[in-house]
């Protein structure tokens, strides 16, 4: 897969704050690539640099083989962006949101109208064709933003939290469309806070924190490498019997408000032994997920 986005030693500073701190990325053509991380990790900043709306501070960034510093206009012509924040045009109805947006790409109006109608069908919005934006539900607005991102038939599609706040039906529709776009050989760059979404969709992903890339890899591989096959959860709201038990056994545990997490490939056996020793404390085992990777790497503290 030839890379379509290459970042080398990429840095973005806002005054003293380093939002993106010397990262390297290579996103291949046709990939669904996930950018994960807690709020303030630098995902959106990285995306804004890739889409050429935020200038880089230092380092190299190439998109579709072009330098973002000199070829912004041409890059923007060939990518599509569905931003996190709703910036649909409230002065227009649904169809004109697409056709007026097409004009910014200098797309002839008859072609724009045809594409707009196809995209409304694709995102199941045909019935809302002549509805004003304020009358759309949150899910319809997100679908329209994704449709709008496709109006210029882009090679790279950037989806910044495309499913935040959506009901399960709308989420699944968007997932399915993302896979369909991949079959059409599009490259998709995705940010999300939903780990199940990332695990299902992404071919490859990075987890960022404080402007740095913590890990990079295939979702399954990351789970196996960072957490192991399975996770044991122990619920012991008051008391530290379990805590002491594992510490004495020399095992690493993570603690949240009311439970302990034991990450190990042998957690089936560990769970059995623990139950024998403390039959009165509730414990369970489950397969490890990307969420465990995420929490293990970025900690459980709240981010504001």
């Amino acid at each position, binding site marked *: 897969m030839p890379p379509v986005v290459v970042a080398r030693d990429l840095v973005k500073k*806002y005054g003293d704050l380093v939002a993106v701190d010397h990262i390297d990325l290579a996103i291949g053509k046709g990939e669904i690539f996930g950018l994960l991380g807690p709020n303030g990790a630098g995902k959106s900043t990285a995306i*804004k640099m890739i*889409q050429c*709306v*935020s*200038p880089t501070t230092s380092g190299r960034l190439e998109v579709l083989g072009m330098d973002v510093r000199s070829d*912004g*206009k*041409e890059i*923007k*012509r060939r990518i599509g*962006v569905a*931003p996190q*924040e*709703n*910036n*649909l*045009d*409230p*002065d*227009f109805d649904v169809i*004109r949101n697409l056709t*007026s*947006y097409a*004009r*910014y*790409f*200098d797309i002839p109006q008859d072609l724009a109208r045809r594409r707009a109608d196809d995209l409304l069908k694709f995102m199941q919005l045909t019935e809302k064709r002549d509805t004003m934006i304020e009358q759309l539900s949150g899910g319809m607005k997100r679908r329209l933003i994704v449709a709008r991102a496709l109006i*210029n038939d882009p090679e790279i599609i950037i989806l910044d939290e495309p499913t935040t706040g959506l009901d399960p039906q709308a989420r699944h529709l968007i997932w399915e469309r993302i896979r369909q776009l991949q079959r059409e050989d599009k490259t998709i760059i995705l940010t999300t806070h939903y780990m199940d979404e990332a695990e299902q969709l992404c071919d490859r992903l990075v987890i960022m924190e404080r402007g740095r890339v913590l890990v990079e890899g295939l979702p399954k591989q990351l789970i196996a490498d960072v957490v192991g096959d399975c996770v044991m959860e122990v619920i012991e709201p008051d008391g530290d019997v379990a805590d002491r038990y594992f510490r004495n056994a020399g095992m690493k545990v993570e603690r949240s408000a009311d439970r302990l997490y034991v990450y190990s490939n042998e957690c089936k056996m560990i769970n059995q032994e623990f139950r024998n020793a403390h039959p009165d404390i509730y414990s369970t085992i489950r397969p490890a997920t990307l969420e465990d990777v995420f929490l293990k790497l970025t900690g459980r503290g709240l981010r504001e």
Partner: protein
Amino acid sequence: MINIDRGAVAVWRRNADVFFKTWKTNFLPSIFEPLLYLVAMGLGFGGLVVGLRYAGQPIEYIRFLAPGLISISAMYGGFFECTYGSFVRMHYQKTFDAMVATPVSLEDVITGEIMWGATKSLINSTIVLVVIMVMGWLLFPEILFTAPTVLLVPPITFLAGLMFASIAMIFTALVPNIDSFNYPFFLLITPMFLFGGTFFPISQLGAAEPLAYILPLTHSSVLIRDMSLGTLSYIDTIATVYILLMTAATFYLAIRLMKKRLTK
């Protein structure tokens, strides 16, 4: 600066599309306001005015006032559009963010907005001109402008509109919130409205007359009045040069300040 191309036209088109979607409600104020002014100020107040002279000739007050109304609407058209209008699109609707994610550059957006502001000046003041001519034909022969130079008035209002829209855009780039536009309106627009050679000749200001020439509106109102009445003089050349220079300088500054505000 060189980053301006067809994108600016697309931005202009977007605003024009929105405007003409509801053109009936948009045109009404432009028609009724000058009517009210002509009747109240021109007839009511003007009846008290005797011995008024302009360009060395005696002149009826309503004939002096009418071109002033065109200048005022040219000023308000561009200034309103590129303060409140642009700020709403930039800050509340995030329309600028959506545009710059496409090949449209930030310079295109600002240029398109300013061109649209000037277009609003042109539309509004041309409506005022038409209202004046119709009134002149039907009721008040004093304000029927017959000089051929009156045909230059619409392009001049567009040029003046570019100037006022650019000045407005500077404030839009600087204000922290929408309420802050009270300051430029109170400190700049209202003084111009009153002292910019619109309701009385600036010679009435006596020793303060040169100060009036600092105000942008003084120049556009001189130019519009002289073209309407056909009373050309060397001052019109100065006014034209002033407007061109002021437009170039404020346009440049507006783009610089907007880039500073929006590039992150």
